[in-house]
């Protein structure tokens, strides 16, 4: 039985934590929060690229570190803990994995080295309005060489250089790689519940694009891509949930009411115990997702979905009850609780909300049972 990260991976986690606590501390997050014109921390992003993290799961032949998905999971958790205000997920999960999954050798050799070098920022453009985007009824179209249509919202859409676009092609759907410096791209900045991450509406008007994979394979490729992304996002959520529990614990120990720390009240003790239980359930499911992700296991659909469902629930509960534990202080702008509450919501609805993943999970269980 070896159901844990390795010593090397834990060392990486430790180093990442030290780096991020120094370089992505809350003041860095608040710079982005408080400046409407700032969609990410450029300085932090540059340092992350210099650390080589963007190439963690990119093969050495394309300039990456050639490590595996487990190392990505470790980094994702640490990014989630500090609410890193950078397009890490957009670039290192969505764009990188889409190119690795379905890009031609030419595309891989073009894009991946530039991701490693920090020259490219990615984004994933699927949503077109309220509700989970259905590959069967997209309004954005791809005609084999250009994309037209509007995607909203696109996380990091305002700063990205390249987008992975889910578009209709003929009667099916395709995943299309779009260079956003191309013709016909319009970007509009959006206000969202999580101003520590940039969002935009992207409109394409006959913008050149390259299909990833075969025509009409988009729905299937998108499912595979979402499974991979789901595990990585789940680790970010797990990191956020863990940090929220730590915050609640620390505050409840230092805050006195009625002559003793509020942490001595069963109402607080049991609330934090609930957080702990949810976080451990999430951690174990995330580990299983990491195992499936790193081994291309056939259990990937249910493992990814379970990790995502558990981590979304854990982060939601921890972030809202962290505010509650802080009382009035937790409802001020200056205290960081609301940043976790905001991020919890963003991560929960990105790449499909809990309802979407619960349905995916049950479908996977049905198929397994039928097989």
């Amino acid at each position, binding site marked *: 039985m070896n159901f844990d990260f390795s010593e090397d991976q834990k060392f990486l986690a430790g180093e990442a934590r030290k780096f991020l606590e120094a370089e992505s501390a809350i003041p860095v997050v608040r710079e982005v929060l408080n400046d409407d014109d700032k969609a990410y921390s450029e300085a932090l992003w540059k340092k992350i690229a210099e650390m080589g993290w963007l190439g963690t799961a990119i093969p050495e032949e394309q300039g990456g570190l050639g490590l595996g998905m487990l190392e990505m999971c470790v980094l994702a958790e640490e990014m989630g803990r500090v609410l890193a205000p950078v397009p890490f997920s957009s670039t290192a999960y969505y764009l990188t994995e889409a190119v690795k999954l379905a890009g031609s050798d030419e595309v891989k050799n073009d894009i991946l080295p530039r991701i490693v070098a920090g020259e490219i920022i990615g984004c994933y453009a699927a949503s077109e309005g309220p*509700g989970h985007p259905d590959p069967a009824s997209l309004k954005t179209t791809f005609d084999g060489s250009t994309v037209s249509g509007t995607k909203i919202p696109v996380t990091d859409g305002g700063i990205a250089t390249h987008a992975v676009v889910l578009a209709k092609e003929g009667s099916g759907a395709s995943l299309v790689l779009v260079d956003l410096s191309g013709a016909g791209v319009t970007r509009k900045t959006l206000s969202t519940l999580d101003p520590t991450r940039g969002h935009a509406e992207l409109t394409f008007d006959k913008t050149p694009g390259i299909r990833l994979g075969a025509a009409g394979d988009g729905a299937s490729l998108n499912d595979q891509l979402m499974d991979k992304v789901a595990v990585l996002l789940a680790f970010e959520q797990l990191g956020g949930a863990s940090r929220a529990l730590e915050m609640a614990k620390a505050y409840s120990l230092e805050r006195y009411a009625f002559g003793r720390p509020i942490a001595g009240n069963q*109402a607080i003790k049991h609330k934090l115990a609930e957080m702990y239980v949810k976080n451990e359930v999430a951690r174990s499911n995330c580990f299983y997702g990491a195992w499936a992700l790193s081994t291309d296991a056939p259990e990937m659909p249910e493992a990814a979905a379970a990790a995502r469902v558990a981590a979304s629930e854990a982060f939601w509960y921890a972030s809202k009850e962290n505010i509650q534990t802080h009382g009035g202080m937790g409802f001020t702008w200056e205290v960081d609780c609301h940043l976790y509450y905001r991020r919890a919501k963003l991560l929960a609805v990105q790449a499909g909300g809990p309802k979407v993943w619960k349905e995916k999970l049950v479908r996977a269980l049905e198929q397994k049972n039928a097989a």
Partner: protein
Amino acid sequence: MDFNDTPEEAAFRAEARAFLEKHLKPKGSAPASRDRVNMLEKAKAWQKTKAENKFAQITWPEEWGGRGGTAMQNVIWGQEESKFDAPTGPFAIGLGMCVPTVIAFGSDEHKKRYVQKALMGEEIWCQLFSEPSAGSDVAGLKTRAVKDGDEWVINGQKVWTSGAHYSDFGILLVRTDPKVPKHKGLTMFIVNMKQPGVEVRPIHQASGGREFNEVYFTDVRIPDSDRLGDVGAGWKVALVTLMNERLAVGGSPGPDWAEIMEYARDHGTLSDQAFREKLADWYVAAQGYKLTKFRTQTALSRGQTPGPENSIGKIITANHLQDICNSAIEMQDHYGIINETDRMPADAIFQQSFMWAPGLRIAGGTDEILKNIIAERVLGLPQDVRVDKDLPFDQMKSG
């Protein structure tokens, strides 16, 4: 069992309604104004009009400019007024909680000086109890008052004060003796909010808004004659203030089952059985709360004192609101993260209330405090063990 007014109640309702129709527009007939300064002037004018027509304080005796009406008439007035665009906000706390405290504990001079002007909308009051380190445990407050001749010198900080920036006066609870157990060393004063040393700073809330304030007191001097009640009796005075909180008569805190049902119908997700079951639960809870208020009103209408059943209100509504908004956002999926009123279904009310709901679970008693209150005051279960009960305040641990 029916939902009808008695003949007397119906007559009063008609009178109230006629008065309201004469002076105000029904809610929703014009877009809500966001003009804060003008709002204050309008509120003062409306208060004056009400007072001149004996609709200002329904249950107050006529001696103080009230109507001498019943608690049920007060409920009816609240129901009717809430159907109109009535600018009442700035006066709710002052006339609902502060001035009744002045009437109960103030001298004749106080009453002459303050009551009429407040009633006529000329002066606005705020309530200064909570402190950064004294929220659920209000009696643990630290703001100090030190006697200096015929005056008291105040230093300290209050927090979460509604309307402090436009208030003329406040009732202020401070510590006058730190050598005795915490409840026994408090005293209540009337404070002039416009005097030197009083500094009001808006609080930037987690939701982004700035509806509340911090109030800093630096060497603020209050004459001993502006004391309410005895020195050391402040907690007793404060309990009267808090008991005067008005019976809540409506005013949903945000979107409810009907709004999310409408959204789901418009966006094709009303067929989802999981959503339907949640909707049923929300409806049952919302109805439960609304109908419980009807039970309370029935007691009032019969001239009885309402039972404790109304205490379930905020525990239900605050969590409910957070859950409904969260569900609506999750139904919108990634799109739900957008927080722009002009782009979003229902003018982004789900998003905005999502950010407001955590505050509602805290303000005016956290979920946990409210459950303690139900357990202790309604069910008669024992109080929590109080380690600080007999300890002098200055020997209490405070982190």
